[in-house]
């Protein structure tokens, strides 16, 4: 689904922050992306999201090389990737419900067509009674779950989550992990960037370990 082939990345004229990365995120796969702070986890996620262009190497999404994707095709490619940002990126002027529905709104769907799905998903992530409040009054964990729900609402093929348990206590982190595992079982490929070893120990999955810009894979 996402394939990187000999990818390198440098910012400006600085040293390479990512070097010789070659791996594939397969269909229905689950992997942790880990490494110390500053190892380049977020940069790698941004490469997979096509928010960054590698200095060298090839990135392919859904069987198509990224450089060959036309501007008109980009939005539909992005809609197949759900992303949970480290800082949530919820829109403060929209309610939790509206934030979660946003990916559907931008596709031009009528509210009547998605109301049930959004309501159901919000209940599923435990925000059933927080649907009509604004993000500034949500706790960190609630924001996290709202961001996850937004990433899932349009049933993406791939979910990229950047430190999705970084702002929550261990019990909630476990519950969020169960959520991702269930998502994976339902057929979505999941990439969770985290440096929480305790979290990774709870589920036996492929690990992509970044260290000093190089990647080691433990299947």
């Amino acid at each position, binding site marked *: 689904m996402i394939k990187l082939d000999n990818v390198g990345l440098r910012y400006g004229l600085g040293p390479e922050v990512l070097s010789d990365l070659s791996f594939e995120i397969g269909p229905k796969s689950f992997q942790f992306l880990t490494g110390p702070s500053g190892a380049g986890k977020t940069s790698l996620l941004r490469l997979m999201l096509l928010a960054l262009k590698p200095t060298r190497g090839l990135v392919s999404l859904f069987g198509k090389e990224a450089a*060959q994707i036309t*501007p008109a095709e980009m939005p539909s490619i*992005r809609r197949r990737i759900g992303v949970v940002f480290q800082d949530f990126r919820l829109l403060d*002027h929209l309610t939790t419900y509206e934030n979660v529905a946003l990916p559907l709104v931008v596709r031009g769907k009528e509210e009547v067509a998605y109301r049930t799905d959004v309501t159901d998903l919000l209940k599923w992530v435990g925000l059933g009674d927080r*649907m009509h409040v604004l993000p500034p009054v949500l706790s960190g964990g609630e924001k996290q779950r709202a961001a996850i729900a937004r990433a899932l609402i*349009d049933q993406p093929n791939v979910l990229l989550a950047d430190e999705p348990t970084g702002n929550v206590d261990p019990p909630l982190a476990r519950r969020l992990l169960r959520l991702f595992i269930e998502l994976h079982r339902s057929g979505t490929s999941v990439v969770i960037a985290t440096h929480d070893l305790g979290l990774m120990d709870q589920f036996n999955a492929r690990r992509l370990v970044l260290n000093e810009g190089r990647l080691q894979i433990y299947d």
Partner: protein
Amino acid sequence: MTDGRDIAGEKRRGAAGPAKPVAPAAAKPEQPARYNLRSGRNIVPREGVAGQALGIVIAIMTFLACLTLGAVASVSDTAANWQRDISREVTIQLKPFDNVEMETALKQAQDLVASFEGVASVAIIDKADTADLLEPWLGTGIDIDELPVPRLLTVRIKDGATPDLEALRAALAAKVPGASLDDHRAWVDRLVTMAFTTIAIGASVLALVLTATVLIVVFATRGAMAGNRDIVEVLHFVGADSNFIAHEFQRHFLSLAFRGALAGGAGAAAIFIGLAVWAYLSRATPQGDQIAALFGGFTIGWLGYAGIAAIIGLIAMLVAATSRYTVLRHVGSLETYGRRRPE
């Protein structure tokens, strides 16, 4: 915080999975009675401080631009009226001559002038009016017959007519001794120059004000847009195409700009209407006559109001276009791929 609760429905959904959250008919989820969208269904938030400031800036700049436009239109109209009024009238002066009966000569001149094509009327200024004209210099109670005072005839030219004044001047000189014709050419020339200068200055001021308005509005719009960069990024990453994002912002800023520009333009129009009403109500007073002579009736005509409407439309469109351009440029900067066509 709801962290203490179960992630509700996690088990209930079971194999259906989170990615297919369609509720079965038997367990229809509770529907909210009404979706109270704070934002009125707009993805772009209602005006914050920057948006309100932009609205005020637009209103003020539109007001100033419309005021300048109206003032230029009014001055230009008044200058044209001065010129038209003076060039529609010529004066004939008859100097007293020995052995020439003044009243006969006046009548002779009147008949001669009236026979010329393009002349609307010829009026002899009678002795009483002549005495009134001379009163500031000679005082009251003078006997015109005792003094060698020149007499005047005023000739009104028909609207749009251009009588042959040279031929009239020659005919008067030949047939009426002591008669001379003054077509106010020197005055008209000065007025034409003054009117042209006034209009040119007004047009320059209007051009400067419009340029300043455009620049201020463009920069204020970009400033207001800066606060919305996060929204643009989120929309981009959840899969919105650039036209959708640009359309949302363009619609929002068009509405904001139109309301601001309408307020400014309406304010300027109200001032011109108020001045015109005041001028109309005070037209019979000496003060009103003085002001009317200098500034006309403060009317800017339908062209002036059309100009105000055009400025309102121009500014609203300008703001909308600027917001669209800014959004597209920002989205373009986020788009690292997709700039090349497949080979």
